[in-house]
């Protein structure tokens, strides 16, 4: 609900908002420029003295005005010809043109009405309303995604466009909401939906009838400091019934032109003051610095528009059409999908196709709006659910838990829950887990034990499919083929072999960098942009399913490097470890922004075992700025599988690697990385206190051992692994 409140106004109003914010940002500069350029009155100068100074220079002066920036303008007539100038209050002389700036006027008209009169004003008011809706709904989404208002500025993960969108929005939202609200207020006043009472005193019926008081001697003007002045109008020459009209920050009054006495006075009305405050907050006139800040925040909107559209497109692209989707009331198998980015829909489509081929009548639906009464013929339910943020419902599953909780009784047909997630994040498959718990609490019978798919692994999915097939009584082979990015041919240039003696052949494979087209370079696609820690997808011959390997090189290194260990009965690893220089493989780059050392000088604690050294070695190779890096590396035997052994020694000499601790798991004194960590706990404590970032790469067992060791090491500091994870200071790449 909140999401669609954010999406549709955003997409529809995008162009309008880009115009309004760019013009607004440009306009925000003018009050500041005026404040800096206008000569300011000296402290304590009275209106009487100022008026006398100006009158001595321009005897025909008929009005003196002061703008909120302090700029003083005088208007006069000389021999029937009008004149005007910006005044230096120290001398009363004109120092510049008082004509309005044509650029500012043009921008103002664009900003408030698109040069379209009242129709344009209404369009802009609608734009402001859309911006307010976007700001509020966006703030709710950010809070939900971060896991609460208190974690508003929590580090972000995910694709660049989404991160950029939130990164800008969470700073700019305050200014955008303020500008939108004040804009709506001003529109309402313009269209007279809100009253603004004018406080003009009644024009005096009786005047002294005398003329010719010297303006410099008028007592009320002597008592009014220039900083309070808004305007002083002189009486018409020759009209004895006319008066001086004085407008100040306090109100408006009439002064007799013969005696200088106050004839009538009205204080500024409350609604007028309120409008002036709102006008100032919107335009920055009288609050130039605020105006600049608001203008700067407004500049974020075009970027928000582009990144928001990209996020939306990415979500749409990922969601496949499901041919032959059966009606809800007729289907025997109901697939309920909770997807955020759209990839879970792809898995649902694969499952739908395979079950339909087996004669099942299958209905696929989002988890939102779940109502068991709609599924009259259901024999089994399958929930395929991703997780959003910290265990929250993804967009197509909002309200699902509440609906289960509200059920009188669970449906008769049993349920299988399959979670989709990424093990390296805290609360892995947290939402799917909650679905399972809630269903069990209702007494919903389970078709299969709870299961998970890590990082969209087709292998995990195929394994779960076989379990489902067993329950349903047939062989179910799920071949999930995610939509692959464009693959490139990679040519092997060199290989280094390890581990042959231990029946665990492992190789560092180095491929030539494929040619990159100009378009790819511009858009950062393909092999145009990658760094150590990103993933290389290799599509093995005889299979459509890619296997992912962590990249051990940066694009600037000029080659594509991975570390591959031959898995027993592994199709892809077998093909790769048999490649000779000159042979080719096909692959693509998949960004992995969650596993990057990040910028900055904070020390790095890198922990890896076996092939997990790959990306870590890549980080060290790129560490030309000699950031402090402490590497813990677990291997079986230094003689056999000390991957990157010589490189690590060289990097240590060059200062790219500060310290190396190895753990040897074979031999008379077996030792694992977690043991090495515990031995170095004092050093780790020191590094963590200095803001160190921990990066773990390797097998699942090793990663959980490391996490346990860290739990012990962190405890005396009052820290937990989870806390570091949520701060983005403890990241894992496990397989």
């Amino acid at each position: 609900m909140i999401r669609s409140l954010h999406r549709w106004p955003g997409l529809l109003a995008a162009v309008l908002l880009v115009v309004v914010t760019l013009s607004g940002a440009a306009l925000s500069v003018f009050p500041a420029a005026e404040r800096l350029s206008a000569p300011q009155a000296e402290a304590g100068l009275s209106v009487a003295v100022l008026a006398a100074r100006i009158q001595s220079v321009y005897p025909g002066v008929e009005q003196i005005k002061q703008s909120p920036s302090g700029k003083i303008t005088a208007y006069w007539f000389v021999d029937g010809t009008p004149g005007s100038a910006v005044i230096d209050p120290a001398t009363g002389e004109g120092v510049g043109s008082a004509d309005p700036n044509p650029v500012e006027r043009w921008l103002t008209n664009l900003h408030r009405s698109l040069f379209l009169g009242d129709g344009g004003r209404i369009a802009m008011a609608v734009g402001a309303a859309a911006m307010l809706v976007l700001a509020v709904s966006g703030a709710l989404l950010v809070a939900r995604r971060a896991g609460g208002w208190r974690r508003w500025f929590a580090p972000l993960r995910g694709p660049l466009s989404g991160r950029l969108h939130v990164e800008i929005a969470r700073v700019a939202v305050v200014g955008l909401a303020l500008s939108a609200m004040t804009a709506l207020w001003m529109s309402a006043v313009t269209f007279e939906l809100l009253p603004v009472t004018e406080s003009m005193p009644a024009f005096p019926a009786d005047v002294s009838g005398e003329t010719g008081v010297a303006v410099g001697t008028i007592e009320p003007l002597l008592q009014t400091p220039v900083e309070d002045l808004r305007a002083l109008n002189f009486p018409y020459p020759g009209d004895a019934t006319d008066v001086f009209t004085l407008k100040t920050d306090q109100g408006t009054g009439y002064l007799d032109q013969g005696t200088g006495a106050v004839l009538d006075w009205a204080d500024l009305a409350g609604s007028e003051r309120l409008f002036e405050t709102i006008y100032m907050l919107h335009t920055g006139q009288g609050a130039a610095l605020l105006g600049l800040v608001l203008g700067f925040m407004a500049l974020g909107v075009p970027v928000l528009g582009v990144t928001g559209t990209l996020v939306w497109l990415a979500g749409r692209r990922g969601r496949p059409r499901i041919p032959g989707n059966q009606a809800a009331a007729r289907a025997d198998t109901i697939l309920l999908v909770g997807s955020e980015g759209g990839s879970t829909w792809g898995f649902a489509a694969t499952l739908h196709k395979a079950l339909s081929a087996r004669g099942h009548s299958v209905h696929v639906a989002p988890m939102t709006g779940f109502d068991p009464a709609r599924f009259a013929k259901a024999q089994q339910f399958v929930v395929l659910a991703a997780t959003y943020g910290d265990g929250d419902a993804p967009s197509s599953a909002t309200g699902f838990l509440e609906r289960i909780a509200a059920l009188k009784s669970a449906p008769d047909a049993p349920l299988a829950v399959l979670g989709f997630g990424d093990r390296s994040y805290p609360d892995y498959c947290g939402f799917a887990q909650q679905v399972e718990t809630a269903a069990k609490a209702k007494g919903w019978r389970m078709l299969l034990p709870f299961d998970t798919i890590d990082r969209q692994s087709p292998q995990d999915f195929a394994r779960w499919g076989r379990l489902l097939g067993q329950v349903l009584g047939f062989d179910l082979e799920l071949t999930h083929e995610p939509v692959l990015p464009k693959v490139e041919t990679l040519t092997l240039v060199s290989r280094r072999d390890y581990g042959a003696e231990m029946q665990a052949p492992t190789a560092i494979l180095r491929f030539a960098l494929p040619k990159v087209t100009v378009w790819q370079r511009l858009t950062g696609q393909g092999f145009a942009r990658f760094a150590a820690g990103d993933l290389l997808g290799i599509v093995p011959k005889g299979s459509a399913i890619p296997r992912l390997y962590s990249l051990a090189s940066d694009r600037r290194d000029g080659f594509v490097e991975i570390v591959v260990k031959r898995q027993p009965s592994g199709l892809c690893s077998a093909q790769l470890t048999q490649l000779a220089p000159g042979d080719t493989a096909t692959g693509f780059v998949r960004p992995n922004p969650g596993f990057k050392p990040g910028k900055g000088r904070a020390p790095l604690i890198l922990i890896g075992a076996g092939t997990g050294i790959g990306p870590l070695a890549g980080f060290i190779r790129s560490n030309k700025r000699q950031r402090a890096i402490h590497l813990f590396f677990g291997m079986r035997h230094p003689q056999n599988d000390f991957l990157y052994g010589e490189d690590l020694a060289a990097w240590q000499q060059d200062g790219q690697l500060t310290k190396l601790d190895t753990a040897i798991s074979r031999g008379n004194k077996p030792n694992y990385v977690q043991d090495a960590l515990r031995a170095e706990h004092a050093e780790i404590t020191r590094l963590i206190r200095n803001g160190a970032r921990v990066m773990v790469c390797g097998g699942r067992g090793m990663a959980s051992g490391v996490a346990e060791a860290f739990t012990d090491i962190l405890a005396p500091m009052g820290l937990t692994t989870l806390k570091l994870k949520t701060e983005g200071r403890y990241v894992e790449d496990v397989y």
Partner: protein
Amino acid sequence: MKSLLATLALTTALTMPGLAMARPVTLTTTLNSYGGDGAYLAFYVTDTAGDYVGSLWMAGGKSKYYKHLTDWDRATGGSTAEINGITGASVGSGRTLEITLDLADALFDAGYTLHIDAAVEDMRDSPNEVAVPLTTAGAGTPVNGRRYVANFTYDM
């Protein structure tokens, strides 16, 4: 329709006998190129004593700006009832406004004066921009304005 209403507005204000006789009068107002937004113009009539008699036309639609037409505002108390049905769009810098109204014969050669107040956003208000006696002899003779009006003519 507008001219009829104009007559009505003026008749109700004047409450003078002998108003049955009226003739079409064309008011042509040409503005200077003063380089600002569209000008608001108030056309109204005063009698020999300088007292407000009635309004002829208001160029400019937003009543919140009428207070800047200071003399008109002072005379009418800013009452929009004075200009009900006789308002039009504001007039751009350098443009010409031409309006034809049915005006009572009694307004001419009887000491009445036609005034124009002008105001432009962010620029100096200009009350009494034009003040011209209504006479049959003066018809067709251009009169210069003070600040925003280049010249004004009424033709019968």
